[in-house]
């Protein structure tokens, strides 16, 4: 098997990138005019039209599933891709004969980046549309807001994004990473000789539950690894914060003398101003690398990557992962976006949450077939221990704790917005919803216990 990553081995020069892209950019530039009309209408219709034609082909009435991702508002930028990939998976499955011979019918709703609306739309999917499973949510806030709805009505949610852990709901399957599958190994890597022996850590995040909890765990971990408290700095900025002058000044001071790294859980549109300011204030990736947990290919797609090159990220999957099934997946996704006139068409990229959303659908399909039913409790039991060859490689659902065993990959940002994998974990990492550093006494188990339990 070829292990060289194409982007890793070939040093793509500045000029090459520009010329390489020029062909498609021109097309894109010229073709944009037709997109406005298409964009508005298509999104809404996709959910239904594509599937109706096939839905009554064989095996009984279609199985209804729900897709709960923001298609408007601030989170749309990230979440629209997840809707796209779930619909793509549904299309693939339907073409391949559906689930137990029944077609899948996807019901797409738009909670509009409004957390309250998430709860309402979740209710609607479960109570009105009576869907058998929901794929959805991005932010922890939205998940927290729909959680009571799913628990109350015994629904099933596949949640595809890395998150802060400390949750163990039997109505949710977490296909993204827990903290010990992303953040903790990344910081351990930075502390290792290979990673650069970093000794001081500036934990910078957007002010919400994921960064707060992650940093809480990281701080406990760093303290346990004998990093003095004085060498850990923690700071939070509001959503959409734009002016990072003061913070970069602080980091500069913090990093003077070397040995410092920035652990960034900055979310969304704040990243560009942050990285720009970081570079413009004379800080370099060599002085103080930024290790990010919320910057993936999809976010980099639109960014000016020149300010980001050399900085790091930790995920469980990159588009550049070199497996045959991934090549196919990436090509399929681009083709799907182009075929359906989605914005940016074949320039779209895949990333970790997109992959997690994608294999979530297949895991559910396998579980339904194993259970021979779409009934939530039966499906849930069948999910435990399911394995699937995801684009990034084999993954496994945990036997008891609702989470996913995944590999951890640390990547370096390259000029073309892709990642060069510079470190990977040995095998799959077992998910720990309750961190060993902050909640060593707690565990999550729905087979032998009722969810969260106290370890003896």
């Amino acid at each position: 098997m070829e292990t060289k990553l194409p982007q890793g081995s070939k040093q793509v020069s500045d000029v090459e990138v520009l010329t390489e892209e020029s062909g498609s950019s021109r097309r894109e530039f010229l073709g944009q005019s037709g997109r406005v009309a298409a964009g508005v209408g298509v999104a809404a219709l996709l959910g239904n039209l594509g599937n109706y034609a096939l839905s009554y082909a064989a095996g009984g009435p279609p199985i209804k599933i729900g897709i709960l991702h923001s298609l408007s508002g601030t989170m749309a930028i990230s979440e629209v891709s997840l809707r796209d990939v779930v619909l793509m998976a549904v299309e693939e499955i339907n073409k391949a004969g559906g689930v137990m011979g029944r077609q899948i019918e996807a019901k797409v709703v738009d909670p509009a980046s409004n957390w309250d609306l998430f709860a309402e739309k979740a209710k609607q999917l479960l109570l009105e549309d009576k869907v058998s499973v929901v794929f959805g949510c991005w932010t922890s806030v939205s998940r927290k807001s729909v959680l009571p709805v799913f628990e109350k009505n015994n629904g099933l949610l596949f949640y595809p994004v890395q998150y802060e852990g400390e949750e163990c709901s039997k109505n949710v399957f977490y296909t993204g990473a827990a903290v010990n599958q992303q953040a903790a190994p990344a910081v351990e890597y930075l502390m290792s000789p290979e990673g650069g022996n970093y000794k001081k850590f500036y934990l910078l995040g957007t002010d919400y539950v994921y960064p707060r909890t992650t940093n809480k765990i990281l701080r406990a971990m760093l303290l346990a690894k004998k990093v003095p408290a004085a060498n850990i700095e923690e700071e939070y900025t509001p959503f959409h914060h734009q002016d990072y002058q003061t913070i970069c000044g602080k980091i500069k001071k913090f990093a003077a003398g070397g040995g410092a790294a920035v652990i960034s859980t900055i979310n969304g549109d704040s990243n560009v101003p942050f990285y720009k300011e970081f570079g413009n204030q004379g800080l370099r990736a060599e002085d103080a690398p930024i290790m990010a947990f919320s910057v993936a290919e999809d976010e980099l797609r639109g960014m000016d990557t020149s300010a980001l090159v050399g900085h790091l990220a930790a995920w469980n999957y990159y588009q550049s992962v070199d497996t045959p099934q991934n090549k196919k997946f990436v090509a399929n996704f681009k083709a799907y976006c182009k075929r359906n006139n989605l914005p940016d068409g074949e320039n779209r990229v895949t990333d970790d949450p997109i992959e997690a959303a994608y294999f979530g659908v297949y895991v559910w399909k396998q579980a339904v077939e194993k259970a021979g039913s779409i009934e939530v409790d039966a499906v849930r039991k069948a999910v435990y221990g399911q394995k699937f060859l995801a684009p990034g490689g084999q993954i496994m659902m945990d036997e008891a704790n609702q989470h996913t065993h995944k590999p951890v990959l640390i990547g370096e940002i390259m000029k073309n917005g892709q990642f060069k994998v510079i470190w990977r974990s040995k095998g799959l990492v077992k998910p720990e919803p309750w961190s060993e550093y902050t909640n060593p006494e707690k565990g999550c188990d729905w087979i032998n216990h009722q969810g969260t339990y106290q370890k003896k």
Partner: protein
Amino acid sequence: MSVAGIPMRIILLSLVVFLPFGSDLRSALAAGEEGQTTSSSPQSANPIDQALLDIKSEDAAVRSAAAALLIEKGDASLLPKLDEIRADADRATRQAIKPVIDLLKNHANLTSEQADTRRSAAADLVGTGRPEAIAWLEASAAKEQVWWVKYTMEESAQLMRLRSEDQTVRLLAIKKLGDLRSQNGLSALKEFVETGAQSEATDEQRALATAAQTSVGEIDSWFWWAGAIETFFRGISLSSILLMMSLGLAIVFGLMGVINMAHGELMMVGAYATFITQQAFIAWFSPEHFDWYFPVALPVAFLSAALFGLVLEATVIRFLYGRLLETLLATWGVSLILMQAARVYFGDLTAVIAPQALRGGAQVMVGVYLPYNRIFIIVLSIVCVLGIYFLLFRSNLGVRVRAVTQNRNMSACLGIPTRKVDAYTFAFASGLAGIAGWALTMVGNVDPGLGQNYIVDAFMVVVTGGVGKLAGTIWASLGIGGLNKLIEPISGAVYGKVFILVGVILFLQWRPQGLFAAKGRNADA
């Protein structure tokens, strides 16, 4: 998807589903790697070539010996080979190879053409900890022309001297670092102070501690001032952004009696115009001319925002003259529409690549580094203010605009085409927003929410400054921006903003009409 593709896909899918689950992904993926690294190669006569092979050895001692040899004998010509090895290497090899690459690369870079590269190399050499680098650094420093690079080389050399065994060398280095006001030396110096303060410290350590204490004092007081200057600069920088935004707002508010909530979205139009210009350059021009897109984007941004402004004026605002609150609400609606249109059309985060000239910054003195993009915006805002001043107070058009402002009917009687003046004024203010958007692409991203980020602050500036007074807008933006940056290090960004709001409300208690209230008979008509 073609019809032929379907069976293909089904086969693939079933393959995927029924693939044996036992196989460990990691081993599958890594198979190639291991195969390569274990293959040992024949002996070679050249010691360097031999070392290049040895460094891949599984024996740690062999590896480190090879590394030592490479550092001693090697030069920059080895780098491509080393990089090649590194790309395929396993973890242990990488770790062994890293210091070699670091040292050789940085040594070579000390004589680079680029000042930045030389400086980076000088800074990075400290991390290698190899004493031979001191001589390189000092030799380069002697020849160096750029003061900041020279400074870094000297600083790095002294930082490495701190690790010397020789007491006098260390003492001298400590003193030198103090003289250099070296911020990078601060943590090391503080360590000396701490060691010296311990009860079991030797006399030598105490002497070092005393010297270090003096140096730390020097550095600290220097950086207090440097910090103050940087904070001041940041305040000015934020103020200039606010000013750029508020100028257009103040014009339409003061001269036309229109509150334009879509002003931020007109900025967004300017930013997207810049982005489109960039895309056009990528598509149609050769890469070496790429940086020209930015100056070209200025008129594009101005004109496109002005055009949007014209349309907005003609379709919405002209029905609402004299109805301030209604203009506020209607333009808010327009802003929602423009934002969503951008979201649907551009779909995503898009960003503009800064031209080379606006990247990085200038080291004006030790501890004070001013980013070029910020300096650029400050200068731009000054230019805009001067431009507006001349246009409004020194040009024919300006006289007409002010005439219409003061007495619409009379102006109409005197033959001034008031409709046109309205439209042009609004378009001009919109164009200003476009310029602000153009400039903002240098500090942030281009996204549909661009306008919303600063709009509330900009309105606060207009309200605080007083309606229709250019000077008020300038002073208010300086005040709000400066205060914000002054408070922020203490209170954090959020509470800083809250303090500012409370401040503005209290300020309006004292001066309800703003800083520069229009006085006169019709003041509160």
